[in-house]
């Protein structure tokens, strides 16, 4: 591997550097997420044609499916960060893992709520104990457990370590959520969009879906970075760089 890659990563491992980097990236990620999200939502709600079976109810897909992808993607990113944090004792990695959990919980909640709103008109029920729905609900509880465990310790670092361990244990649920529609006979439909092979969806419906996927990814970066910044001020409060930041903010205010 090229020498500059670990060096660059190593620099980002320093809290003040990451704080500044996150502050610089966040507004751009959020702005781009809002722009792409607005385009995707408009196209999904008004431009894309109605489904031949589900009519306009299927339009919930443009919110539900990208949110569901994010609920699993964020867990993957969080697992990677927790692993790095536990093995190499990199504080920033622990903070990234911990501050990913609330965003993941938000997307999981959106997935469950919009899925319920889609299920009622299509299946005739708000909820059923189907494998996909149940494993997604378990995912929400795992996210909430991670957030709760992190905040239940007096010492933040200790809380982060314990919760990072829970992240690794809870990762077993991610493939269960993903493959539940193949492993069990579920009311929930199978995958529409596939990474390998042709997707079962028209291009006019696919592009708003993929645009929303990009928007939610960027949104995750923006939300995560805002959270990491807030976390670092509290957890690094005693350090000189935060004190300097404080005097600078006072000067600006």
């Amino acid at each position: 591997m090229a020498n500059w890659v670990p060096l660059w990563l190593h620099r980002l491992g320093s809290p003040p550097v990451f704080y500044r980097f996150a502050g610089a990236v966040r507004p751009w990620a959020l702005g781009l997420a809002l722009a792409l999200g607005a385009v995707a939502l408009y196209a999904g709600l008004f431009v894309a044609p109605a489904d031949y079976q589900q009519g306009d109810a299927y339009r919930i897909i443009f919110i539900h499916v990208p949110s569901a992808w994010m609920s699993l993607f964020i867990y993957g990113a969080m697992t990677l960060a927790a692993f790095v944090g536990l093995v190499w004792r990199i504080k920033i990695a622990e903070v990234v893992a911990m501050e990913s959990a609330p965003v993941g919980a938000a997307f999981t909640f959106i997935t469950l709520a919009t899925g319920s709103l889609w299920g009622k008109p299509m299946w005739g029920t708000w909820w059923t104990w189907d494998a996909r729905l149940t494993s997604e609900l378990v995912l929400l509880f795992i996210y909430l457990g991670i957030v709760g465990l992190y905040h239940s310790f007096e010492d933040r670092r200790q809380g982060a370590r314990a919760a990072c361990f829970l992240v690794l244990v809870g990762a077993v649920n991610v493939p269960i959520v993903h493959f539940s529609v193949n492993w069990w006979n579920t009311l929930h439909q199978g995958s529409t969009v596939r990474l390998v092979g042709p997707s079962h969806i028209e291009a006019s419906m696919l592009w708003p879906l993929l645009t929303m996927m990009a928007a939610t990814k960027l949104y995750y970066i923006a939300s995560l970075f805002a959270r990491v910044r807030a976390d670092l001020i509290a957890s690094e409060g005693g350090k000189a760089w935060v004190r300097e930041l404080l005097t600078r903010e006072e000067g600006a205010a």
Partner: protein
Amino acid sequence: MNLAMGAYGFYVWTAVAVFLIVLLIDTLAPLARRRRNLRELRARIARQENRRRPGTPSSHESHP
């Protein structure tokens, strides 16, 4: 514009509202938390400086 969404207006628009409201809260919460953390840190530093100066009343020492 197809605002009625066939017969499914309630379901589609509620889903959109849930999406936007949850993410709005998720965006605003960390910004408020960052400001609160800065304020608390400022207060902590002020207390520490009070303690260093003898003779000044240390009134707000309830939590260390």
